[in-house]
């Protein structure tokens, strides 16, 4: 009997979802939203994601870097949000992730143009990342001239950089022994 009284006292505990939207807390951690414009393809999020929900890799013909997110795998930990240098992935307040018929509806994709190495012509990073770095360096007080000199270096893939360095060092050593 007491329990029935209580029901009257507290009234309706449910509400008319989905017609009445559910309000989540301010700092709710929902589905990560991807802002394509900001992404520079640095792959930091892909590395940080513990559940491999984010994959960043080259497409088959190696012309684009594909950023791919699978909401079904995401555990909403927010690591991607934490590591992204440009704020391109931010946890949203969205929690309604059910999709109809097709699992692919859970996926989100973004394609970025790749940059080819000036020496070996292999794709190694994105155009956006290069311009982002140049922009940062400019902001950090590098003047145009030094930048222009270094641009070639920035546009070289790590492998070629390493080879170049080894060459320089061996040459230096040779010279030194002479």
């Amino acid at each position, binding site marked *: 009997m*007491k329990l029935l009284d209580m029901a009257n006292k507290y009234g309706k505990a449910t509400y008319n979802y989905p017609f009445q939207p559910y309000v989540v807390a301010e700092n709710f*951690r929902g589905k990560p939203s991807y802002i394509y414009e900001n992404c520079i393809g640095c792959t930091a999020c892909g590395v940080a994601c513990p559940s491999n929900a984010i994959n960043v890799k080259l497409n088959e013909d190696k012309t684009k870097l594909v950023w791919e997110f699978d909401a079904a795998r995401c*555990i*909403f*930990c927010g690591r991607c949000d934490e590591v992204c240098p440009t704020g391109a992935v931010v946890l949203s307040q969205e929690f309604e992730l059910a999709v109809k018929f097709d699992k692919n509806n859970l996926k989100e994709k973004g394609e970025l143009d790749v940059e080819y190495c000036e020496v070996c012509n292999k794709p190694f990073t994105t155009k956006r990342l290069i311009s982002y770095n140049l922009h940062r360096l400019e902001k950090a007080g590098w003047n145009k001239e030094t930048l222009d000199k270094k641009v070639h270096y920035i546009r070289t893939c790590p492998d070629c950089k390493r080879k170049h360095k080894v060459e320089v060092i061996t040459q230096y050593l040779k010279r030194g022994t002479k």
Partner: protein
Amino acid sequence: MKIGENLINKVKEKIAISDVYRQPEDQITITVDRNDLPEAVRILYYDLGGWLSSMVPNDERQINGNYTLYYILSMEGGKMTPDDEIVKEDKCWITVKTYIPANDPTYPSVTLKVPAAVWYEREAFDMFGLTAVGLPDPRRLMVSDDWPEGLFPLRKDSMDYRHRPNPVDHKDEPEHEFIKPEGAGVLDVPLGPLHITSDEPGHFRLYCDGDTIIDADYRLFYQHRGMEKLAENRMNYDQMGYLAERVCGICGYAHSIACIEAAEKAIGLEIPLRAQAMRVICLEIERLHSHLLNIGLACEVTGNVNAFMHIFRIREFSMELAQLVTGGRKTYGNVVVGGLRRDMTGNEIKQSLKILETIETQTNEVWDAVMDDKNQIKRWKGVGILDKQVARDFSAVGPNVRGSGFKRDSRYDHPYDFLTQLDFDIPTEDGCDVFARETVRYKELLQSVSIIRQCFEMMPGGLTVIKPQTLIKPQAFAIGNDEAPRGENIHWIMHGNAQKVYRWRCRAATYNNWPSLRYQFRGNTIADAALIVCSLDPCYSCTERVTVVDVKSNKSKILTHKDLKRYSQSLKNHPLKNL
């Protein structure tokens, strides 16, 4: 004198100890010869007041050419009587370690002397092929009945985890052997393959005489997920905490804390105060959430759906609280080595305190109403008795053991970090029945509310996470413990190379409660079977089917989930009437 020194000296009087290792201060590992193992564990368990918390078999052939066993005992006193308890300052963990040569993987069974070791020793064979000589119950436990002979999944060289043995056709699958009581006319009641109260897999077999259960046996682990192997092979610590969380849908946070704590303790890492406080808060929120669920379910299986609904209404608040504290409706995805990922704002704390108030008043109100209901109490009282001695022998944990009058709680026996600054009680009851266990849960709810409140009030400032510079020391190991809603969770971690774990042993609370369940069934009616399992608050995923067999006619019948639940609620139309 260092902690636990006198206990070690007492063991030394009878048994040769070759090595003593401390990491950290209150965790002592002693090495004994394998032939001395049962006696060493027995002395610590019965003579010196230890409880078997976990046992870790490990494949250390790469390190020292042997297999090793670690029997982890929580030294806190027998607690059979109030003064039978070790003083607070002397409470510690003592691990008995022994080497087993790779060419002769056998050791004398400890189970003969300490019954609590039974599941652990069965598991050691399934996973590592280490045979306990003299083990009374050598059946398979962890791996399925169709698992190939001689393949031991946790050995380092056993198999590539990407390839699994081919599944056996269902019709060729061997039958699991159940332990059967002798006697004419035992009725075999299969309960399962799905469990009645929590819809999870697990096969129970109840042996009945008429309506009374005279014995029970169960086959679990239909869902062994091989998490420990997964972590060893390819996870780093960043991912492991989140993996540990997936052990359970309810007490997952406690698992991730214990797992990360173990990793931190092994390298002596101190985390910021604010993170410590927030870890305690999240653990207590989880307790609110879980205890409300269990009290609700205990009402529901006895047909009191009204109370169930009210309790679940209150439970909703605990999820809102979790949302404020961690940003998700469960407390998940928050722990990292070195602290916590997410901080709280002052406004969130204020809102949380308000919710706590609501939870406290409304829980009291509903509990009072349930206590007024004589029929409800009648269904709970005297059902599923967990005898004191059985609880002691099998090292039961959580509300299960506290309902039998033992003041055993990880927060009380082995407090660390922020817990030492808090002021709280450990409620116990002497009834040993379902009623006692639910009362313990109710009282704990109130304690949790008070703990969370204290934490919010004392909330230290500062950061919530530190960036550890060097993370791991190969081969350093430690125990991580905490009190999950169902009891103590123990994780044991040994670091490996390259930021990876060498061995991770995760022992969920329910694992220690299962072996004694059999004794709780005896003497009760079938209608109470569902309730007894429910009051244990089992967690199948962290550990993991019911056949009823009539002892008189020797016939058996499989009860469906619906049948049993219906009978348990209405007590009408006996499902075995026409047998």
